[in-house]
């Protein structure tokens, strides 16, 4: 498994090539790239930051879970931090498997779960302002319902 957080361009070609082995019949790749807009608002760039050590641990856990859960052969998850321009890859997920169904399912589960649980955030620089992107709510089990009384 290849689990990395990098501060420079993600070498997708090399990573995908290195993920292939003789027993594989299918490789599914998800390449998340910086879009030029969010809901029509024009994006200049994104700044990614992470709780780096925890994010790496979470990514490794997800990769291991995907291998077990979907019986795929190998998984790579590489996320980039820092300033990214439109068109650049922020996250690359590669799943190699004997069969295509498992490769698709594992790849999709990985990006969906990563986006909800791996501590990485992005600040969006628009032409007309800057904003921390809304995350998706944490899954139950990570955040217990807030008990309002505790605030005092």
């Amino acid at each position, binding site marked *: 498994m290849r689990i990395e957080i990098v501060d420079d361009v993600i070498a997708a070609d090399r990573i995908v090539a290195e993920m292939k082995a003789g027993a594989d019949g299918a490789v599914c790749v998800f390449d*998340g*790239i*910086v*879009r030029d807009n*969010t*809901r029509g608002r024009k994006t200049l760039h994104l700044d*990614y*930051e*992470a*709780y780096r*050590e*925890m*994010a790496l*641990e979470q990514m490794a856990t997800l990769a291991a879970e995907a291998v077990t859960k979907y019986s795929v052969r190998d998984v790579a998850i590489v*996320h980039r931090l820092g300033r990214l321009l439109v068109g650049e890859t*922020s*996250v690359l997920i590669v799943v190699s498997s004997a069969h295509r169904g498992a490769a698709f399912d594992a790849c999709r589960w990985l*990006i969906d779960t*990563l*986006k*909800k*649980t*791996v*501590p*990485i*955030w*992005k*600040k969006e620089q628009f032409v007309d302002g800057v904003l*921390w*992107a*809304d*995350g*998706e*709510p*944490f899954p139950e*089990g*990570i*955040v*217990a319902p*807030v*008990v309002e009384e*505790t*605030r*005092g």
Partner: protein
Amino acid sequence: MRVRMLYFGIVKDLLGVERETVEVPVGMTVEGVLSFSRLRSSKESEIWNSLAVAVNREYAQRSAVLHEGDEVALLPPVSGGLDRAEKNEERQDA
């Protein structure tokens, strides 16, 4: 006892600090430090209701009790990768 606090994303901006060591009473819970941080924040924000807390790099329940030297991180909802979920998008467009 002392714990190491780490703030990320918008929480870092709200508190105006990235990391700090704070003195807390023995028996302090995750809920306790969260309330404490919230009270310290100059600006009120909805974000306090949706934070997760990690203790020593693992997600922790609100009731978890802290120990001397713990690393406690306040984490806003994460937004790694690209492509906001369509569900979210629709809700916000509405």
